[in-house]
């Protein structure tokens, strides 16, 4: 499988899709907290200035206002960095939005480690765990531009709160323009017998590359992409547990309660298999360019392949014994 990268970043697609949806849905409103050129909501602002609301640097207020508008029938997209949605305004998201199931679509920009040089205060590798723990909130991490766009169309068709990640990253292309995102549906991108590598967001590309490396040494790795963390594709996960009996997950997130945690919760209940998790540990962030961060925290194809290899070797030894 050849991997090719988009020249457009996910955040750019986010901004462009907002414009596209704004045309179709007159009740769509975008709210900002002084980050519109970073988060790319500026594109919507330029096109629909009357439906763009600037809240200043006040994230609690941003989500409160978004909730009030939603209560009056608008579909609101309050936009800020993932850190400020999932940490700074969490209580507002919970009490005023999640609980009453208001139609608020929360884009977490600069998610995971993609705030790069901004360092710890802006990086947010907890958002998936946090949002997964809230009631009623759907939690999504798109793999590429096509998926992000399709996801945004899907959330307009489904009332209720959604949290979705928007990375400041050019992603590898996993899908094509006809890709159809569905809540709770994952995708088996590559078949394999020995182990399944699970990815979410743009990190699935690392899993694909690792599978290529493993292939070279005779290990057959399946690759599954999980864009919808809640609801999650339990069926796919259980099927792969039966088929390969060993999992490695990789995510742009800490290894507590994120993709790895969600998959572990399911396989433990339904069909226990050995599972290794790659992601950020209980660690501080360095402020650095993305390529340095990925290497520093060992979130590379080589590192993933090494974990998978060890797992498969153990499994083969156990079967032989």
């Amino acid at each position, binding site marked *: 499988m050849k991997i090719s990268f988009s020249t457009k970043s996910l955040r750019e697609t986010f901004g462009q899709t907002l414009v596209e949806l704004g045309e179709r849905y007159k009740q769509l409103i975008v709210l900002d907290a002084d980050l519109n050129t970073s988060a790319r909501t500026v594109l919507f602002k330029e096109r629909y200035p009357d439906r763009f609301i600037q809240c200043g640097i006040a994230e609690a207020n941003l989500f*409160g206002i978004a909730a009030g508008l939603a*209560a*009056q029938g608008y579909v609101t997209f309050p936009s800020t960095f993932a850190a400020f949605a999932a940490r700074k305004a969490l209580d507002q998201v919970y009490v005023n939005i999640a*609980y*009453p199931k208001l139609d608020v679509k929360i884009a977490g920009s600069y998610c995971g480690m993609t705030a790069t040089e901004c360092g710890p205060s802006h990086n947010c590798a907890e958002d998936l765990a946090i949002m997964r723990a809230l009631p009623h909130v759907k939690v999504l991490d798109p793999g590429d531009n096509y998926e992000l766009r399709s996801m945004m169309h899907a959330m307009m068709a489904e009332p209720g709160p959604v949290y979705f990640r928007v990375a400041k990253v050019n992603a590898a292309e996993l899908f094509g323009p006809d890709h159809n995102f569905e809540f709770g549906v994952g995708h088996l991108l590559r078949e394999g017998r020995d182990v399944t590598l699970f990815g979410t967001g743009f990190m699935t590309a690392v899993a694909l590359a690792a599978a290529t490396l493993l292939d070279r040494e005779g290990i057959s790795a399946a690759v599954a992409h999980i864009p919808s963390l809640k609801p999650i594709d339990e069926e796919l996960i259980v099927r792969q547990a039966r088929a390969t009996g060993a999992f490695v997950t990789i995510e742009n997130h800490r290894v507590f309660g994120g993709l790895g945690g969600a998959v572990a919760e399911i396989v433990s209940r339904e069909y226990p298999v050995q599972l290794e998790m790659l992601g950020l540990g209980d660690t501080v962030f360095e402020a650095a360019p993305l390529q340095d961060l990925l290497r520093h925290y060992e979130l590379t194809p080589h590192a993933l392949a090494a974990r998978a290899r060890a797992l498969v070797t153990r499994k083969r030894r156990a079967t032989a014994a």
Partner: protein
Amino acid sequence: MTRLTSELHQAIDAKAFAIRQLCLEFITCAGWGHIGGSFSEAELLASLYGGIMNVDPQNPSDPRRDMFVLSKAHASPALYAVLALSGFFPRERVFSYCRPDGLDGHTQRGQCPGIEYSGGSLGTGLSYATGLALALRLGDNFASRVYCLLGDGECNEGQIWEAAMSAAHYGLDNLIAIVDYNKVMAKGKLSDLMSVEPLSDKFASFGWTVLECDGHDVAEIQMIFHRAKYLEMKGRPTVVIAHTVKGRGVPEAEFNYHWHTHAPSIEQAGQFLAALNKTYGKQEKFSRPLASPKDGGLEAVIFGDLA
């Protein structure tokens, strides 16, 4: 004062009494609830739902209605009471307060007619009200207004000031905030714990028109809200700082933070009703025999199952 207004005022005073009595009944039955902040807001709510706000119990979702946000959502009993007494839902329903499938301890949007806002976390209501007021603007609805009732202790919360700043920035003259300035928060007096003085200067410096009134004097309340609705400056939100007494009506509970959150025993409830009757020159009786539950907690559940 014309005879008509004085009749109106008497009706509102009567409703305020009825609010207090009903709160006392169902808080006692639930074994939980906020007496102090419910009693301090009684005349304000009776006035808002007694003609100041444009609401229709028969059509509570009328798009042309005025909207009410109880940011101090712990004082939901008085709101449930005024809604029930105004015919938004059957009076009986308030007795489901704090029971499974019943009315929540704090207001939850859509849980019963007339409740617009899910709250309980202090500080969040004024932002939400700002969102509602913006929505009216965007929808070219110039008939409706949004009213938002804040606690005075709640004004410690920074989000109140974020919302205040933004509502002024947007020029939302369809937004009227009210502060139930009862001088007491959960565990003591504001002046001891965290003062918000000078409160009117604060709102003024955040770009609001500030009005003040006695929050138990129905005539003053009426007058001030008429000013807020019709006479105040265009292009600015207005705040009414209503000076009130926490626990108003029951001398033992007045200014007494012990009765911020606390349910009276059946016996105490009887004493409280007697005190209310005395304060307001009434001779009301409870509408039903009161009974309060006991929470056996974890112990009851475990020993129940083991038995």
